[in-house]
């Protein structure tokens, strides 16, 4: 295992310490409780927006804590959902009296732990709404699965919803916008290589030199199918087509296009994928009104990429454009 780490069991703790040291102007890290809280939280009268999940997806979610996005994040062990105690602590830390939104990616572990946390928060008299993201079209016939996974849309949703929450909008409206973003977004990802969970020490799956996985999640789970390596243009086609179809995009639609790297893929390749995606959408007369290109929701050092498209309207565009100031995303201030 080749990683810049110390003891595997200290990876999350030390990465959190590094974030604290680098971003003390924006966030407060509670290493003990394992939560990252916006420095000025709780903000009276503002809905608190929190999220969380396993670590290994950096910058998600801790890198999105700050003005105009998340009020707190709960990092679990690598690829393992955090525990209800963390979510409860985060919920309490950001509750400014207007209630708290839990942004939950649809994985059994995340859903069950956030569910328990919401029960505890309710018991403490804190109003909580939960929104579950499930944008991964690689997971089909969700009646026969735990349901589509929450992946790339989660990042965009946290930005857009955080923008609305900053205006002082009530919890119900914030939750409603969150559901709307989730409904308007779809994603699909692929891997050129596997990744190694530090405490495991060997790759989660083996891939031949001439193979790739299509339809992977963000936890090094094997994908839906293994195929021979293909060109960036072909890969982009494989990812974009099901996304476009599942979302029912039509000529004239405007989208927010997000080309995401899985952690080990350099920016130069992501721009090649974005170029291919741009051609595909242009050919269908679908306009990329906004875009995000970079590694924002990763699987440790996995090489690969995912494509997320969100259908935009004025409301979504407005809150995407709204100022944000977090360690990983910043504009407008």
């Amino acid at each position, binding site marked *: 295992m080749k990683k810049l780490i110390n003891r595997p069991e200290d990876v999350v703790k030390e990465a959190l310490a590094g974030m604290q040291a680098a971003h003390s102007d924006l966030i407060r890290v509670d290493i003990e409780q394992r939560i990252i809280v916006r420095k000025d939280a709780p903000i009276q009268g503002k809905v608190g927006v929190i999220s969380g999940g396993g670590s290994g997806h950096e910058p998600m979610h801790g890198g999105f804590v700050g003005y105009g996005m998340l009020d707190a994040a709960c990092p679990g062990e690598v690829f393992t959902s955090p525990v209800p105690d963390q979510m409860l602590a985060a919920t309490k830390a950001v509750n400014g009296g207007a209630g708290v939104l839990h942004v939950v990616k649809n*994985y059994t572990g995340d859903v069950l732990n956030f569910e328990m946390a919401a029960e505890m928060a309710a018991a403490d008299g804190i109003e909580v709404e939960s929104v579950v993201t499930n944008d991964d079209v690689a997971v089909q016939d969700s009646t026969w699965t735990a349901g589509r996974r929450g992946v790339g849309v989660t990042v965009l949703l946290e930005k857009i919803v955080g923008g609305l929450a900053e205006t002082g909008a009530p919890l119900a409206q914030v939750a409603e916008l969150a559901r709307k973003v989730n409904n308007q977004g779809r994603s699909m990802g692929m891997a050129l290589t596997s990744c190694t969970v530090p405490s495991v020490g060997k790759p989660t799956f083996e891939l031949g030199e001439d193979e790739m996985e299509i339809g992977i999640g963000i936890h090094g789970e094997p994908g839906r199918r293994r195929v021979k390596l293909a060109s960036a243009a072909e890969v982009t086609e494989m990812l974009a087509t099901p996304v476009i179809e599942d979302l029912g995009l039509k000529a004239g639609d405007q989208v927010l296009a997000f080309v995401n790297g899985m952690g080990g893929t350099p920016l130069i390749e992501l721009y090649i994928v974005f170029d291919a995606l741009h051609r595909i959408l242009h050919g269908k007369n679908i306009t990329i009104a906004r875009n995000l290109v970079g590694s924002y929701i990763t699987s440790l050092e996995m090489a690969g990429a995912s494509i997320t498209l969100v259908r935009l309207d004025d409301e979504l565009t407005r809150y995407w454009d709204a100022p944000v100031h977090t360690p990983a995303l910043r504009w407008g201030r």
Partner: protein
Amino acid sequence: MTNEDVLHWLERTADVMRENRAYLTDLDSAIGDADHGINMDRGFSAVRDKFPSMASMDISTQLRTVGTTLVSTVGGASGPLYGTAYLRAAGATSAKQELAPADVVVMLEAFLGGIVARGKAQTGEKTMVDALTPAVAAAKRALDQGATLAQITSQATAAAEEGMKATIPMLATKGRASYLGERSIGHQDPGATSSWLILRSLAEICAGQ
């Protein structure tokens, strides 16, 4: 069984989870995210830290302690699932100083009930439930036939092992493995395996009786 026996059971479980940390994680690598063994070992290591204080607790309090500890240290799907299982088991044994064979069966039923209540899985979905459901049924049968606690728990373990093996050909429809679709077939479910280990630890303790 006494609170001392329960403590032995939990100690045995903690050791077994450590011994099988890599095995459970390998199973999870094939159809999950390679952390089940790590999760279970982390949770039961936290439980181990509480053993000193647990000697003086009654059975129900011991089980409640395990439940809350697992909930707050395991994470993942198995944390809330096993956590709820032990919490329900605690509820089913409250105020009991000793567990008669019938009480143990009631406890196991509650254990399974907690997992089903939390996870909403049915048998055949390639989860813990596929090991625990036949195990509880076998335990009941043995009890009705007037078997001893040793027989009840060993027959429950045997049924759990069968149920665990039966998950191999199953298509997962719950949990992370379900994302694999057809590719989940041919692999043994990690959670069903940890459930079997929990029961086997119980049987080993009761074998003494």
